[in-house]
C-alpha cells in the first residue's frame, strides 16, 4: 500500500535525469533539483536530461544526498538538518574540494556556504607549511622574500601553536 501511494505520487511529479561525467544516470524530482541554480536554468530552457561533464558519479551521489535532505527542510526538523550537515562535511580534504568545486559549478548556494565554512574552520590555525600541503601549493617565495613578508606582520606568526596536521 505504501509503495502504490508513493508511485502514484511520483506519477504526478515532473522527473529529471542527471548524468554524471562517468555516464551514470540519476532520476530525480524536479522540485529537489531546482535548489541548484544551474540546473534550474536548464529546466527553464526545456531540458529534462542534464549532462554534468564536470561532476563524477561519486561527487554527484553526495550532492543528490544533500539536495534530497534539504528538500525535506521544514520548521520542525532543523536539528536533524544540522546533524546531517555536520556529518556531510566530515570527509577528507580532497573529497571536500571535489564537492565544493561541483557546488560552485552547479550554483547550490547553501551547499557552497556549508562547505567553504567547514574548510575554513578546518584550516584556521593550521601552519603555513600544512596549508601548502593541503592545497598542493608550492612555495614561490625566495627565502629573502618569505622572510620579508613574515617580518611585515611578525606578530601573526607568533600567536601560539600552529597545527601542523594535514587532516
Amino acid at each position, binding site marked *: 500500500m505504501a509503495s502504490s501511494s508513493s508511485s502514484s505520487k511520483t506519477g504526478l511529479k515532473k522527473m529529471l535525469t542527471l548524468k554524471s561525467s562517468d555516464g551514470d544516470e540519476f532520476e530525480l524530482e524536479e522540485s529537489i533539483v531546482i535548489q541548484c541554480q544551474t540546473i534550474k536554468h536548464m529546466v527553464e530552457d526545456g531540458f529534462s536530461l542534464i549532462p554534468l561533464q564536470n561532476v563524477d558519479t561519486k561527487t554527484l551521489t553526495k550532492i543528490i544526498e544533500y539536495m534530497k535532505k534539504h528538500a525535506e527542510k521544514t520548521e520542525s526538523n532543523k536539528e536533524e538538518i544540522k546533524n546531517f550537515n555536520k556529518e556531510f562535511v566530515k570527509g577528507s580534504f580532497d573529497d571536500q574540494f571535489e564537492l565544493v568545486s561541483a557546488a560552485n559549478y552547479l550554483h547550490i548556494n547553501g551547499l557552497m556556504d556549508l562547505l567553504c565554512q567547514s574548510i*575554513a574552520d578546518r584550516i584556521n590555525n593550521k601552519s603555513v607549511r600544512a596549508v601548502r600541503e593541503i592545497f598542493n601549493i608550492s612555495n614561490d617565495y625566495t627565502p629573502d622574500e618569505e622572510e620579508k613578508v613574515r617580518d611585515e606582520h611578525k606578530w601573526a606568526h607568533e600567536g601560539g601553536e600552529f597545527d601542523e596536521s594535514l587532516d
Partner: protein
Amino acid sequence: MISADPPGDEMTNILSRLPVEALMQLRSVCKSWCNLIRDPHFVNMHMNQHSSYKESGYLIGKDIILDFAEIEECKDTTLDVAEIKECCTLYSDETFAEHKKMEFPLWESTKSFQIIGCCNGVLFLVYPLTPRSCCKMYFCNPATKIIKNLSNSPVQLPDVRVHVAFGFGWVPWLDEYKVVRILYSEQMNLIDPPKHPPVVEIYSLKTDSWTKIEIELSYFIISHTAEAFLDGCAYWVARKVINKNDFVVFFNMADHVFEEIKLPSCLGDGALTGSNGEVVFESIEGHLSLYDPRNQQFQDLHFQENPYIIELFAYKESLVLLDLGTEYWPSEFHDDGNEELESQTQESRNLRR
C-alpha cells in the same frame, strides 16, 4: 580539484571566511595569496562575508593596561611600579562583556590618543588629546596593526586652544574613506555664536589630501568626539545660541552639504552615538532614542545607558588599509603638543609615587 594557486572562486570564498589574524599569517603561503589578501575586492568580500567567526558584533573603546615592572634601582624599597599603556578593548555588543584587549602598534609612543571614530574596522585617531589646529591624525586598523599617517592639512592656525569637530567614515557610493574637520578659531562657548565662521575641510584617503570647502556655519558643533556615521553622513549635536535649543546637524560626505534635524522637545540636549547603522541620541540623563533617517522619526528605546561606558564605537574586524602596505608608527612627537604630553606623563608619574 579546486584551483588554489592562483586562488579560484572556491578558494577565494574559503579564505574570505577566515579571521584577520589567520589571513595575516597565510600571506606567507605563496605570492598569489599575499596579493589576494590585500586586494580591495577581497577586503570588501571578507568584510561582508557571513562567517562563523563573525557572528556577534563588537564595541571598541580606549582603555589602559597596567604593566607592572620591578624597578631595580630602588633596591631598598623594591616597588612594583605600574607602567600605563594605552590599548583598545573589545566588548560584545550584546552582553557588554569584555572580549579582548588589542594593542596599538608601537604602543610605547601611543600615549594619550583619542579615538574620534571607527568605521569598517578602522579607527580614526587624533593626537594629542586636546583639540588643537595642528594635531596629528591617523587611521589605525588594530586587527592588522596597519597605520596610516594622514597628510597635514594646508590650513594651520596658530597653536592655541581652538574648538574642533571631526567626522570620519566610509562613503559607500564613492567607496572612499573621508574625514571632515570643522575648525573654529576660538574656544567654544555656549553663550554667543562663534565670532568667525569655522574652516571646513575634507580629507580623502584616495588622494591623501585635504580640500577646503566654502560653507558658513553660524553655530558651534558641540562635541568633537561623540558623533554617529551612517550612509556617508556624519552626525553631531549643535547649538544655536540665541534660543539655546540643541539640534542635530549632519554632513553629507559625498555632496559636502550640512543639514539640520530638529530634536523633539522631550529630548532636550545630549549626545549622539552610532551603532550598527543606526543613529542613537543620548540625552544627558542617559536616555536613548533611535533616529531613523529614512522616515526622519525618533523612537524611544526605553533604555537607560550605563553612564560609565563612554565613547564606545561599533567595531568589526577587517583587512581595510592592508593595501597601503606597512607604515610604521612614528616614534617621536617633538614638534607638536609634546609639552602637554610631558606634563601629563609627569602628572601620572607623580600620582603613582
